[in-house]
């Protein structure tokens, strides 16, 4: 079985850089982590590989050159091949343009299943998996909490999906894009000690627009259907704030406050 995982390195939310003049994220700085939902997806792919010996797990990433070390580490953690789509022409692509690039690459690949995180930590739109599926003309389902069963002969998967108030089990035709919901239980293995410096360049593939041949008007800022006009780093309205510590006197002040407002039970 061929499994392709869509993976995005995301900047650490505590520490990001943003170009306020051009309204684009400076993705080349401050990479910190693989998007947690995507990590769950790769981990689910490893589980499938164990169930179906001989399977291959490949990751697909569109990101600036700075992402490469993170993709190399994915290989050291057990990924068979990492594809890195990177081209200055793609900078500033929104989800629409990005899906177009990813789908263009995927069109020429063979796969039984595409796994991704449901959403990313930075954008958080959950658009990409659905849009890639639409462009490839295949099924998609998001918020998958568990892949229950894959029936390769029938080309179907049985998956559990969880929403705020419901649990669903669906059967979905393959190939399909499954958007995994983050699960703390499905984390990637650590890099084995003897693989820390392993040379993995042979398992990396870099793809540029020379390979994909997309028109310039379809990618980057010009190919995007949305445009960020204004960004505010949120500042909260000022009001009178009582600042205290955790010493006895301070706790007493908090107690008085709670009592005055009627929060303490008689």
């Amino acid at each position: 079985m061929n499994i392709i995982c869509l993976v995005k390195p995301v900047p650490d939310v505590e520490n990001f850089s943003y170009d306020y003049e051009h309204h684009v994220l400076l993705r080349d700085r401050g990479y910190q982590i693989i998007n947690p939902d995507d990590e769950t997806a790769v981990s689910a792919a490893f589980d499938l590989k164990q169930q179906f010996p001989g399977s291959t797990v490949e990751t697909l990433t569109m990101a600036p050159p700075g992402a490469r070390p993170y993709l190399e580490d994915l290989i050291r953690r057990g990924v068979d091949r990492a594809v890195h789509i990177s081209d200055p022409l793609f900078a500033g692509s929104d989800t629409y343009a990005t899906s177009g690039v990813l789908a263009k690459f995927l069109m020429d690949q063979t796969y039984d299943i595409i796994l991704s995180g449901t959403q990313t930590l930075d954008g958080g739109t959950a658009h990409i998996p659905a849009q890639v599926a639409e462009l490839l003309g295949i099924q998609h389902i998001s918020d998958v909490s568990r892949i229950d069963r894959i029936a390769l002969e029938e080309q179907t998967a049985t998956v559990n999906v969880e929403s705020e108030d419901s649990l669903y089990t669906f059967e979905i035709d393959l190939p399909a894009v499954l958007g995994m919901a983050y699960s703390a239980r499905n984390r990637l293995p650590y890099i084995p000690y003897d693989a820390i410096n392993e040379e993995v360049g042979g398992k990396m593939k870099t793809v540029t627009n020379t390979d994909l041949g997309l028109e310039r008007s379809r990618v980057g800022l010009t190919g995007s259907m949305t445009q960020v006009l204004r960004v505010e780093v949120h500042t909260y309205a000022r009001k009178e704030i009582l600042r205290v510590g955790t010493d006895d006197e301070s706790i007493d002040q908090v107690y008085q406050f709670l009592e005055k407002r009627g929060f303490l039970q008689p």
Partner: protein
Amino acid sequence: MKRVLIYIDQDAIEESLDLLEAAEQMYGADSYTAYGLSVGSACSRAEGIVDHLLVIDAEKMSSYDVQNITACIDELHGSYRFNAVLFPATLFGRMIAPRAAVRLRAGLVAEVTEVHHRGNDILLVRPAFSGRMLAGIITKGDGPVMMTVRNNTFTRRKRVRKDTEIHVVHPSCSSPPGVRLIEHRRKEAVQDIRESDVLVAGGGGVMRHIEQLEDLARELNGMTAASRRVVDSGRAPRHIQVGQSGKTVSPKLYIAIGISGSIQHAVGLKNAECIISVNSDPYAPICALADIVVIGDGMEFIQGLLKKIREHRTASSENGFPEAKEYRGNLPGNGGR
């Protein structure tokens, strides 16, 4: 007249109809025609509210058949040329909207929180970057303006009852559904943090002690809640998560312990009346929202406050009210509390 299509999720009908308020903010109350799209049933609750109700026959399509619903929206757009297409950000709304945006070659903005105008453009605001920023976004191209909106973001105003025209849609594009429902179970109803007047919420700073928040919550007759970080770590269940990816709450008292308070979290506590923030970092963003900022260790605070509350109770019971709680209702002069 502008034409606005609203996707009505059968599991969130009122929430879907609330999107009329977003449409109204985009175009003005009398300048648009509202089309509701209902898959599977006629959706009587939308009658009188939308101008046109487009109904796709249940036999033709199920509400989780996103690929065919997308094709159908494309077909409808071909005949009606909508100016905007709005989806509730439900499980399926969030799956259909991006597919439809590709079909319609349209800009889609996810989880819009505000609608503004800028010249002739409609500026849609959403939190981005894990809630660290608010982005104002316009859509480009000739396609309709598309968005998803979370529950409780907009609230529909009462309007004069409309004469809703019902149109049964016969999609020409339907293929056998590639997704089939095997089982659907409602989760057990758990006590909802949205209904609690008092919430004691824990964040990354107290991640390892989240169960100790329970004591304080119980003492204050409230419930515990958690930030995304705690829930993601598996230390608290998803249904008690506050914030953009969790629930929007409006308690009378919100005690945030060890929560830094990204916008994403703050979005979830828009209408909290009093906020007490306990944090070792005096510059944590949530501190600016708070009435009281306690700078220090969360556990120390909880233990200190619990001790104080219990001391006061013991003191009052020594004053002749051994079981004040039980007696109180019968004591004279106790009214008006």
